[in-house]
Every structure is written in C-alpha cells, then in structure tokens.
C-alpha cells in the first residue's frame, strides 16, 4: 500500500565537502545513505532517517545536515502533523503506534516554574570547596525511635535498624534492562554506579551471571511481572530488590521484548528460549491487592534473609499517594515513583503521552501523605521520570524525595539523542540494540566515564546550591519546601506542591 506519510527530515549533503568515504552509509543502521555507483555519489533516502544525528556527528568532513523537513500539511491547530501522520500509519497498518523515550508533549514542567532560595546577610552561605558537604543518603526504613543504652558512660544505639542502601550522592540509575539496552550500555551503567558510589537498576531482564560478582554490590535487581532471570542467586547477589509494579512511560500496561531482540545472550540472562517474545503481563498475577503485594515483599525479604531493602516501583497516577501509603504499610523499605515524563524502550504512544501525572506533583503529594500518616520514616522515596539537571534533583529533594533515578539523562550522557526509535532495535549509538555491530560502537570505558563525569558534575552543582542556601547536609533540605517558591503557577498547583508563590 502506498504510504501517504512524507519524510520527517530532510538530508542535506554538501557535495563540495563530501569525500565519498561512505562513513555515513556504515553509520546508519536504518539504511538511509547508500552509494550510487552510476552517479558516483552518495544518495540518501529521507524516508528511512530517524533523525538520530549519528551520521552528522561522525561525518569527518561535516558534510551532512539533518533538518526537519520544510514540507508541511496545511497548518491546523487541532490536526497537528503528528496526529495526521499517526492516523495515516494506523490506517495503513491497523497497528498500535509504538514509540520510545519519554513523553515529549508540552505538559507543564514544574521544575521550570520553581525557584530556589539562597542565603543573604542573615545566615551565611557555605562554600562547598572549602567546607564539607554531606550528600550521602541512606535509603530504606528508619526506626520510629532510637533506644540508647549507656554502658560505663559509653553510649550505644540499642535499636536494630533494618537494611539501608548507602549512596554517596542521591542519584541512581533507573531500571533499564539488558535486552532493552545493549550489554555494553548495561555494563557501562554498572561500572559507573560502582565507581561513583551509587546504584544501577537491572530492570526486569536479569543480571548476567558473569557480572554478579563484580557488580552485584551496586545493583538493585528488579522483580517484575514477567519474572525474567530470577533465581535465589540473582536476588542474593544484589544490594536491594525492587518489585516493579508500574512505569511512568506506560502505567497500567505490561511490555514485551520482541523476539528479534531475544539473542542467545539475552535469552541466557532472562532464562527463556532464544527468539521468543518476552512478555511481561500488565499486572503481577500474584498481586491483586495490597495484601498480595505485602506477601511478595515478605517473600523477597525471606528469600534474601532480611538483609536487603525491598523497593516497590509504581507509576504516578491519580490517587497514587493512598496506594503509596498502602505500599509502605505492606512493608516496602523504598518507594520509587515514576512520573509522566519517564522514558521507555517501547510504549504505545497513546499511553506514553496520556497516562500518569507529572513527577513534581507526585513527590509532594506522596511525601505529605506519608508525613500526615506518621509513616514517612518507614520508607524512602526515589523520584523518577523527567530529571534533566542538578537543579531538578535539588528541587525534587526539597519537595520530599530522598533520591532520584535518572534514565534518559544517563542514556543521553552515553550518546542518545532521543530519536525515539528505541523499539526498532537499530540504535545507531549502540545503546538500545542487540546487534553486535551496533553495540560495539559503545565503548564501556568511555561511556562509563561519561556517566561518572555526569554524576560528579551534578553532585558538585547540588553542593553549590545547597551551600548557597546555607545548608551543609542534604538531609536538612529533604521535604523543606520553605526553600522553594513557585513562579507562574495556579493556586491549586502551589497547593499540591506545598510551596508559596515567589515574593511571598
């Protein structure tokens, strides 16, 4: 059937500069560029271009430009180009529109409407280069009170504190499974996490056996509805276990890794036959209630001898704060909440772009709810979905989060340009692919260095902003909304965020 969709990008090649090295042809897994021997020049097929900019960046002569096409449908505020084209594709195939990465729609980004405080005159600010700043964070349940025992004038803490994760900086790598991302990308995250004193999350694709010894100590292993690659050894080699209930990019639905991506190595890690669809059902079929969730939380605590904190990850949706309260009461040590803008390797676009709530509002409501119920100490909150810079992190913490997960940000550090074609498995950057040729483009040493650099830079910026507020420990900022003010927000938004307007 003739497709009525025209190309999204135009490819401009400067023939003067082009040295016909055919590098662009090799770089593009989508097959956009090819050499025409008759015309003796390189030609490009814009229909195939994903706009990932790989050829642009790797052209040794800077001869290529990829731009949005100037062709247009008659402008129509209701029928945007995206709406028209998605509809046409569905009319042509009868399929669900699939996409990758996070929600790209213009929902209000609250981070950009919140400003931070700084010290002036009445309390001195602190210079992090000169004075110690405490970013170290403990994630897990804290006791309601501490019993202290005096022994011959020596003070001892008599209360047994449950297992906690110690992170040197409140930035963790979000769940991205081996299978969705390449082995090199997965290993880069693990390497950087161990190096930077933080944790990576395996997602639901298991943890390759050869990585367990070296990287288990910095791994949060996931137990999701598909239960892939899970055995007692997987659970016990890790620092913590996370039950994945939902994901911000696709709340309420499961996922499936298409059989094409289930290579022998991915199959071995997930422990499923090569080439079969790896299907994660929408719910966990052993969890239909908070009581059932509690049963799985305690099954995992039993399976790990009560030595590891258990996290539960949910997507931020309506009424999720009440669910969060149930999760804490069910015995979770950590709640991870994933907001509307959370990324994914593949999600139906209708769901990605329309389901869930922004993370900023979610952090504040959950923190407030747990505080009001007097159970905030029983679980830590990790916020995910839309963290783009250090300022977002510090605002998240002031709104009540203990730490943040970064997913898209970590991928961008490794080379991702958010072309949203993750689900094709043809990632030219070697990140979201199982093709050995493409995967080899991602060098673990370089990618992990880029990730460590990012963590280092953001941590330092967080210290600078903290110091500017006259605070020397992140702990003192947690849930401290007095340090935030809103700009350009409605009254209800300020109420949900629990902050005052700027100038108040």
């Amino acid at each position: 059937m003739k497709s009525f969709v025209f190309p999204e990008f135009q490819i401009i090649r400067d023939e003067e500069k082009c040295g016909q090295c055919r590098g662009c042809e090799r770089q593009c897994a989508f097959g956009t560029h090819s050499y025409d021997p008759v015309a003796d020049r390189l030609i490009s097929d814009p229909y195939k271009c994903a706009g990932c900019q790989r050829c642009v960046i790797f052209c040794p002569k800077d001869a290529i430009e990829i731009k949005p096409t100037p062709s247009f449908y008659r402008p129509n505020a209701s029928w945007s180009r995206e709406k028209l084209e998605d509809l046409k594709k569905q009319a042509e195939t009868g399929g669900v529109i699939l996409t990758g990465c996070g929600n790209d729609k213009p929902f209000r980004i609250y981070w950009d409407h919140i400003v931070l405080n700084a010290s002036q005159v009445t309390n001195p600010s602190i210079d992090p280069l000169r004075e110690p700043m405490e970013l170290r964070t403990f994630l897990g349940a804290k006791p309601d009170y501490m019993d202290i025992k005096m022994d011959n004038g020596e003070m001892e803490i008599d209360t047994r504190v449950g297992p906690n994760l110690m992170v040197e900086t409140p930035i963790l790598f979000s769940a991205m499974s081996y299978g969705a991302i390449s082995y090199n990308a997965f290993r880069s995250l693990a390497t950087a996490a161990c190096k930077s004193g933080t944790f990576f999350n395996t997602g639901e694709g298991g943890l390759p056996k050869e990585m367990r010894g070296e990287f288990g100590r910095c791994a949060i292993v996931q137990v999701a509805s598909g239960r892939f690659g899970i055995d007692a050894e997987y659970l016990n080699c890790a620092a913590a276990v996370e039950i994945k209930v939902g994901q911000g990019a696709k709340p309420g639905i499961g996922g499936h890794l298409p059989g094409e991506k289930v290579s022998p190595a991915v199959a071995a890690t997930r422990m499923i036959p090569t080439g079969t669809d790896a299907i994660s059902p929408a719910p966990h079929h052993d969890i239909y209630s908070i009581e059932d969730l509690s049963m799985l939380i305690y099954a995992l605590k039993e399976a790990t001898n009560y030595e590891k904190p258990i996290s539960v990850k949910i997507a931020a949706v309506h009424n999720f704060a009440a669910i969060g309260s149930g999760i804490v009461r069910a015995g979770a040590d950590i709640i991870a909440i994933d907001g509307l803008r959370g990324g994914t390797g593949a999600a139906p676009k209708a769901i990605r772009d329309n389901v869930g709530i922004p993370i900023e509002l979610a952090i504040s409501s959950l923190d407030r709810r747990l505080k009001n119920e007097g159970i905030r100490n029983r679980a830590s909150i990790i916020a995910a979905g839309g963290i783009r810079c250090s300022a977002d992190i510090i605002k998240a913490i002031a709104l009540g989060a203990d730490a943040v997960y970064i997913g898209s940000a970590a991928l961008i550090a490794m080379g991702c340009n958010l072309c949203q074609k993750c689900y094709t498995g043809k990632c030219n950057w070697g990140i979201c692919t199982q093709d050995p040729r493409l995967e080899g483009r991602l060098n673990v040493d370089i990618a992990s260095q880029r990730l460590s650099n990012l963590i280092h830079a953001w941590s330092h910026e967080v210290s600078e902003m903290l110091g500017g507020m006259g605070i020397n420990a992140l702990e003192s900022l947690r849930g401290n909304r007095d340090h935030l003010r809103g700009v350009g927000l409605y009254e209800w938004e300020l109420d949900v965020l629990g902050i005052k307007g700027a100038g108040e």
Partner: protein
Amino acid sequence: MARAQFAESQAEKMSRSGERMDEVEIDATNLSTRELNDRLRDLMQAGVESVVLRNVCGQRYIGTRLYSPEHRKMKIEIFGTPGNDLAAFLFGHEIIVHGNAQDGVGNTMDAGEIVVEGRAGDVLGFSMRGGKIFIRDNVGYRTALHMKEYEEKRPVLVVGGTSQDFLGEYMAGGIVILLGLGGKVHKGNFMGTGMHGGVIYLRGSIEASQVGGQVEISPLDDNDREILERYVSEFMSRFPDLGLNKDQILKDEFVRLSPRSKRPYGKLYAY
C-alpha cells in the same frame, strides 16, 4: 525456645553423637513464620539435610530462605497446613506436605521438588522455571501462570484432579498435566490465554470454548505419550497409596494444548 538456644542445642546434639545429624524435627506450634524459617535456615547452615516440621499451621514461605552460595540441599517434610507462598523462589530443595497447601505454592521456583498429599490453592507454580510439583488432588485458579523454560530447565506440574479457570495463562514453557482422576471433569475456562510456549496435557476432553484464542487443541503424538508415561509414573511413585494403574490411565483419551505461535503479539504494532 529462643533461636540461639535452639541452634545451640542442635549443635550440641551433633557434637555429642560425633556425626552429622541427618534428621531433625521442629514443632511449629506457636512459631511465627519468621521464627520457623530462622530455624530452618540455621539447620541448613549446620549441615542438616532432612527436617520434619510438625503442627505447621499457616506459616508462610517455608523453603524460601534456604539459599546458600554452596547450593546446600534439604528435604523438608511438613505435617499440618503450610501457609501461602510455600517454596517461593525454591532453589533445589525437596518439600513434602502431608496435607493441603494454600496459595502461591512454588512461586517463581527455580529447582527442586514439591509433593502435596492433598489439594493446593490459587496461583500454583506461578512463573516457575524449573523443578517438579506433584499435587494429589485439585488445584485453584491461575495455575501455572507464565511458567517458563530454559535449556535443561523444564518445569513439570502434575495434578491428580483438575484446576479452576486461567490454567497456563501466558505460559511460556514447561509441562502441565491434569489427570482428572476420580472422574473429575475439566470445567476451567480461559485455559492458556496468551500462551506462547510449553504444553498442557489434559486427561479427558474439553470444549474449544474453554481455551484462549492463542491455543491449539490437538491429539497426542508419540513424543507426547513418552512424556506422559514418564511423568505419570513419577506421579504414581509419589502417591503409591492411590493404587493407580498406569496403563489404565494412559490408554484413556488425552488432549494436548499448545501455543499457535511463539510470537502471539508479533503483529500488533505500526512502526
């Protein structure tokens, strides 16, 4: 008896007898789930290979906390009624229940064997990837959901009676056999919905309306008969008191449920 005292007394007994203690009994009366599992773990680490639990009444996760890096194995005999999630994440141990079991038996089990001399509840063998489960009587809803297999790991579930709805939903591997003994008729609906691997054998017959759209109902071939012969024999050896006649059972009508495709959702998307 406190945990430390218990472990100590066991250790003492062991040193007195000068040999490894092969079998230990625990009276589970008034023990909480955690206390009972503490003791089992201590015994495993002390090298005990066989434990008898008496008066078990609702304690959960029996067998779950028995992971050891050395992959120690234990045999646990249970008298009474164990609670939910019996043998969840089981890592190669052997469990025999002289009585009924509740929900979640063998949840995400990896290896080992469970024998229940009675019935089992819902969500039996959920996401099980290896090992064997033999249930003498009937089982509840959502049995063998998303059961998997990988290379030499091929889980087996044999049920003497029948199951309720949603048997083998999302099934991705493994072998499930329902024997329908005692004239039990298979009345479960939605069998094998979303199935994309593995095989289910039912003794007796079912209507096409009882299975999901991804399932093919077919008669047995020689390979199927071989599989059935092997596991029916194993089932009978676990329950000798039933006095079953294998040839009699095997000559009856069986049907096989298998997936139409390994990729049931392959054509769902517009790229």
